[in-house]
Structure formats: structure tokens, C-alpha cells
């Protein structure tokens, strides 16, 4: 199920990265690289990469792409992000990877459709982006050709993606907000950027752009209504305590002890349950700090 790190390859990455000649390298270096990969793995789960880039079938190769994402503009199929040189991202440089993450541009200079949440990932730090890359490159390459998106005619060109981007997007790293504590800023970083919660929980305008003024006031995913998670007492999660939120993100328990299935179940399984408790509490602290809004949908 979960992707396993090939230890031999890991050593080689270490070698390449540190220009150390022998394979039996000094342990502090190995542990620094191990830390990098471990952090990259953590961020790959926290960032949801693992969910969207893994096909929704039994025994699917992790991160080899192929998952369908249905949107009002057509169906997108996630690409292969294993280190396969021809079909994956094996040939991508650090800068190429960061350009994809931060600006939605492929190494060939093509614009990605915002189904890939680069509009959120643009806030991800350089260190985190590179840790994710290091982890992805440490995995076994899987040969799997990307499937073409199936889009409405007016979206069927990458130019449309470029035009959309020119109007709706400004690349920008996250900077901690002065006057807020470390926990809040960590939560903001996770919710707005790495975890890209707003991609589902924030409503969109007609062009599909997120309405940042209604952050977390609820959205729609296909036919599913995505809940308002602002602290609004009746429409949102205003009655949830911090530990209610933490428990929900950990294993899906609603306040009061129920366990309701939804598309969030998978997010909990693959992403939020894999976070540290501190990160879940940071998310809770951030969500509780948002202005309480009425739901964006009926």
C-alpha cells in the first residue's frame, strides 16, 4: 500500500547529493539524508500528493498517476510522479520541480491546469519542496504513460490554462504573519498551502478561481457538498473544540462519537492521520481563528 523507500537507491542519492565517494559513508551524512527523505515522505503525505497521484484501483502503483478528477471543466487524470525517466519525473531538475510546484509550469514550459493545486502549493517553502522531490526520487520508478485529460473544448488547450493563470494567479511563498504565534502560522501554512484544504472547502467563482474572501465556507466537488469549516456555530464547525478537530483529523470521529463516510475519509486515511499531533493541533488552531461565515452554498 504505502510506498517503500529503496534503501540502496537512498544510499546512491546520498552519494550524488553529497559527492561522497564510498558507499560506506559516515553515519552523520546518512542520517541527514535519511532525515531529508523522512521529511519528504511526511510532506508527500501531508501535501496529499500520494492521494491524487495514485490511481483509485486496487494494487495501484503509488504515485504513478492515473486518478480521475472530475470538474465542471472536464476530467483530469493525474500524472506519474515516480522517478521514471520517460514517463515520470526522473529527469526533472530541482528548479524544474519547484517551477511546477510554485508556478504550475512543466519543465517543457507548458502551463498546468489548476486541477494541480499549484495555486496553493505556491506557498510551500523551498526546503519542503525539495524534500518532497528528494523523497519522490528515492522511490522505485514506475513505467506508466500519462493519460490525456478529457476536457471541454474551451479548456482543451494549454493556452487556456495559461490565460487563466495570467488573470487569476500570482506566485508567492508563505511568510509567517507577524502578531500570530508559531502554531497559528504552522496551521496557516498547512491549511492554505501544503494541505490545500481550500481547494475543496473554499467556494469557487465561475472561472474556477477560489474565493479567498470566503475561505473555508464550503465548496462543491462534483455532486458532493463540501462542508463549511469556518467557526460558524450552525453552518460551520463553531461548536467543535480544538480536540474535536484533532480527533476528527486523526481518525475521523465526529464530535459526539459518530463516524460519517465522505470524500474526507480518504483525506483522513492518506493525509491528516499521518500528521503529527502538533500539526493537527496547528490546523485546528488556524481553523478556529477564521472568521465565522455562513455556508457559501444552500
Amino acid at each position, binding site marked *: 500500500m504505502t510506498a517503500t523507500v529503496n534503501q540502496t537507491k537512498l544510499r546512491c542519492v546520498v552519494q550524488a547529493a553529497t559527492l561522497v565517494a564510498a558507499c560506506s559513508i559516515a553515519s552523520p551524512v546518512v542520517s541527514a539524508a535519511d532525515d531529508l527523505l523522512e521529511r519528504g515522505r511526511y510532506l508527500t503525505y501531508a501535501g496529499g500528493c500520494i492521494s491524487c497521484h495514485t490511481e483509485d484501483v486496487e494494487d495501484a502503483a503509488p504515485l504513478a498517476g492515473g486518478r480521475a478528477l472530475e470538474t465542471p471543466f472536464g476530467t483530469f487524470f493525474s500524472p506519474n510522479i515516480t522517478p521514471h525517466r520517460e514517463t515520470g519525473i526522473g529527469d526533472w531538475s530541482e528548479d524544474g520541480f519547484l517551477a511546477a510546484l510554485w508556478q504550475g509550469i512543466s519543465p517543457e514550459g507548458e502551463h498546468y491546469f489548476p486541477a494541480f493545486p499549484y495555486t496553493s502549493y505556491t506557498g510551500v517553502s523551498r526546503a519542503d519542496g525539495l524534500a518532497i522531490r528528494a523523497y519522490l526520487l528515492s522511490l522505485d520508478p514506475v513505467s506508466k504513460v500519462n493519460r490525456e485529460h478529457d476536457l471541454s473544448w474551451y479548456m482543451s488547450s494549454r493556452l487556456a490554462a495559461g490565460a487563466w493563470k495570467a488573470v487569476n494567479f500570482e506566485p508567492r511563498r508563505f511568510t509567517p504573519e507577524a502578531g500570530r504565534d508559531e502554531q497559528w502560522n504552522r496551521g496557516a501554512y498547512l491549511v492554505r498551502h501544503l494541505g490545500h484544504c481550500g481547494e475543496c472547502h473554499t467556494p469557487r467563482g465561475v472561472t474556477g478561481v477560489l474565493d479567498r474572501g470566503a475561505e473555508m465556507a464550503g465548496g462543491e466537488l462534483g455532486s458532493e457538498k463540501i462542508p463549511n469549516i469556518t467557526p460558524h456555530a450552525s453552518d460551520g464547525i463553531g461548536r467543535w473544540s480544538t*480536540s474535536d478537530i484533532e*480527533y476528527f483529523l*486523526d*481518525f*475521523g*470521529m465526529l*464530535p*459526539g*462519537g*459518530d*463516524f*460519517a*463516510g*465522505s*470524500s474526507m*475519509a480518504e483525506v*483522513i486515511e492518506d493525509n491528516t492521520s499521518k500528521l503529527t499531533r502538533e500539526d493537527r493541533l496547528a490546523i485546528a488552531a488556524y481553523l478556529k481563528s477564521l472568521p465565522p461565515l455562513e455556508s457559501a452554498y444552500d
Partner: protein
Amino acid sequence: MQRKSITVFLTFAVSAVLSLQAFADTTPEDAKDYRAAIMTSLRGHIGAASMITRGLVENDGHLVSHAEGLAASAKELDRLFPAGSDVGESESLPLIWEEPEAFAAAIKKLQDATAEFVTAAKGGDAETIGAAFRNVGMSCRGCHDRYRESD
């Protein structure tokens, strides 16, 4: 302790006999409502146990009662889904009856998890209790994700 076990045993024995009689003319609606009632009891014990586990409410020995309540209700799950009880406002998905073995395995998971939670609650170690409680939650969710209609 001995007396408690006997009481528990007798309670089960008596309710088993009663239930056998009751089931003779149980309608599908009754079966569905009974199932919902047991689910509500599970939810109540989970909610209460979670508050004690999180330290929001004093334990005072009550965690064991809730754990035992969970284990007792979990034991009943096997008989809560008779064929044809998918009626009215039921949230049970047809998959329950389409893959009975997988469903039985999912129930067994909860039964094992709740039994372990009872042991943990009696043991009193906070970390073990937390982990055991999480396991109970995971088995609830595992089943609901697959077999219960989502919102």
C-alpha cells in the same frame, strides 16, 4: 469480580433468550430500528469514552463501563443485519449483503478492538488507552466508509 462476570453472563443469557423470542415476529422495520438503536448506543459510549480519554471528564472508573458497553454492543452486531432489513431510512448499503464474509470480518475487527479497549481501560495506562481507543475509532470508520451511506 466473579459476581460481576456472572451478572454479565446472566444478562447476556436472558437477553439472548428474549431476543430469540422477539425475533420470531420481528418485522424488517423493527430490525432496522433495533440496529439504529444499538448504533446509537455505540456512538454514545464512544463519545463519552473519547471525552474521558482526552481528559475532559474525570474517569472515576467509568471508562471501563463505557468500554464494556462498546464491547457488549459490538458483540451484537453479527445479528443486526438480517437479510431484508434494508428498509425505510436505512443507511446500510447493499454491499453488506453482497459480501457477507468481508462484512463479518469488519465486524470482527470492531469486536477485537473493543475487547482490547476494555483491557486497556482496566489497565489504566493513558498511552495504551489512547491507542486502543484510536483503534476502536478506526474500526468504526473502516466499516462506515464501506458499508454506510455517506452524507
